[in-house]
């Protein structure tokens, strides 16, 4: 390395090898990453391998019954219309909430770019504080807000005279959609924030000076510039929404189920680990497929933008 070449040769005659044992840590090698890599191999890769395997074997008391490889549980799940219905619901709830997140997040990130000083800091606190607040606490907040007659939303709407009878929102798709959107909103804002707050303003000024309206500048200059960040946010929010089981369980009520909820129920309540493993495998693989689709659509769009320019 260059440090080696730059150092004056006999600077430490008393202990020339002092600190030599530190070299692996501060030198340019792979060495310091070895413990983390080993840790992930043992505590992530092997366990996930086990999870995938458990869907294709017979299990008794948490142990694989010798030589019992079978495709039967997977085929049974794939031919079960209930599984497809649950997957469809997981998909559309996650997709709808992801799109809602984008619509709500973009203006916030855009506003952040044009704010300065204290207001900017306050907005940042508003964006980040939910991220650091337990998702369970925020789900509880939605239980309180949307809950039956005593729910805060119903109380306020009745008091304002907007409605006479309390709305039934809790234990419906709407509650799940609202909760999911609010809880994952910061995940969409943060990637946009980075791009929109450090954007090159001269492009907008040029566009405005050339006579384009603000609306046209917004859609033709600013939005195309942020396409990679938009799709990064979409992929992240879709993945966390699609695999979330806490929000559907608590806000959707006892009879509400999605693929992720079923994975939990089979593993923890029914204790059918084979079924749980099969459904978890389906959840994980479909999630990767959807995320892959979002990411490739994003890169195609931004390439298309480059060409158009």
């Amino acid at each position: 390395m260059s440090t080696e070449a730059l150092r004056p040769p006999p600077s430490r005659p008393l202990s020339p090898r002092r600190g030599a044992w530190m070299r692996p840590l501060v030198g340019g090698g792979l060495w310091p990453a070895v413990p983390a890599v080993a840790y992930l191999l043992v505590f992530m890769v092997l366990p996930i391998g086990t999870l995938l395997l458990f869907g294709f074997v017979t299990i008794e008391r948490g142990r694989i019954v010798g030589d019992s490889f079978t495709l039967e549980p997977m085929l049974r799940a794939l031919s079960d219309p209930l599984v497809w219905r649950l997957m469809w619901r997981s998909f559309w709830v996650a997709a709808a909430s992801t799109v809602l997140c984008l619509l709500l997040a973009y203006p916030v990130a855009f506003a952040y770019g044009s704010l300065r000083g204290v207001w900017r800091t306050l907005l940042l606190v508003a964006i980040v504080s939910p991220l650091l607040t337990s998702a369970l606490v925020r789900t509880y907040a939605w239980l309180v807000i949307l809950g039956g007659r005593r729910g805060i939303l119903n109380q306020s709407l009745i008091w304002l005279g907007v409605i006479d009878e309390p709305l039934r929102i809790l234990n419906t798709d709407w509650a799940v959609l609202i909760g999911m959107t609010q809880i994952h909103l910061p995940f969409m804002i943060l990637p946009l924030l980075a791009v929109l707050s450090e954007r090159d303003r001269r492009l907008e000024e040029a566009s405005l000076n050339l006579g384009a309206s603000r609306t046209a500048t917004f859609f033709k200059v600013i939005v195309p510039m942020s396409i990679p960040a938009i799709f990064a946010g979409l992929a992240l929010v879709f993945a966390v929404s699609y695999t979330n089981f806490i929000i559907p369980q608590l806000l959707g009520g006892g009879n509400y189920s999605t693929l992720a909820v079923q994975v939990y129920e089979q593993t923890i309540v029914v204790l059918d680990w084979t079924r749980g493993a099969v459904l978890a495998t389906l959840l994980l693989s479909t999630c990767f497929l959807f995320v892959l689709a979002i990411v490739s659509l994003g890169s195609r769009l931004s390439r298309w933008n480059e060409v158009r320019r």
Partner: protein
Amino acid sequence: MRLASGVVWADRIGMAALAIVTGFSILLLVAPSLIVLAVSIEPRGYISFPPSGFSLRWYEAVFANRQLTDSVLVSLRVAFSVMLVCLALGVPAAFASVRGAFAGKGALNAFLLSPQMMPGMVIGIASLFFGAYFAFRASDAMLILSLSVFCLPFVIRIAMARLAGLDPRLDEASANLGAGKLETFARVTVPQLAPALLAAGAFTFIEAFDNVTVALFTSDVRARPLPVELYYLVQFDSSPVIAAISSLEIGLSFLAMLLIARTVGLDRLGR
């Protein structure tokens, strides 16, 4: 240059729409936490909004509830251990992936950050099944091991961002002035890295403390951590006592946020 008045109007409507949506989003972001705080000071036995008075009786109820205080202790212990494990594994790993010069560095980075792509539930169930294979039951140890997988990318990401921003010439200068590798590391690199370590530690602590998706599968049934305890409570009850404990959690995350804001800056969290 004169614009058509229609265009000006469209712009005004566009700006107004933008402002309205921004306001609505901000309300959506902060209102739930504020409502939880408001409900926690309710003097009566059920939820009403705005609260009918001010009382700390639900906070007293939290501290009088042995099950809740025990679960807080479990969570504190677990979160602290996870923080130590993640810092010990993550910081050196970040060194390798920023300063290292070797083939396959991109692959290494992707692998180190890959737990981010795994839903918490999948990490939890996988750990449960893997443990069962060795007759290793859900316990504090399993919870710490599985949560560390979940939290490792947070430390690595924050440490990497900070390391990438350091000027390697400072290290070279230190070496040129005769400092050894160890001295350079301890007196030049670590002090520059310290804010990132604090932020990474705080973020990991909070994520481990609050986690429910992994913990539901790997925590000890007899010594539940706080989020798991709350998860079961919330299903059957929405009494203000949950609001009180939630408010305490919100206070904790605010402390973490202050620490992160003072060290690496809040806007760094998303990158």
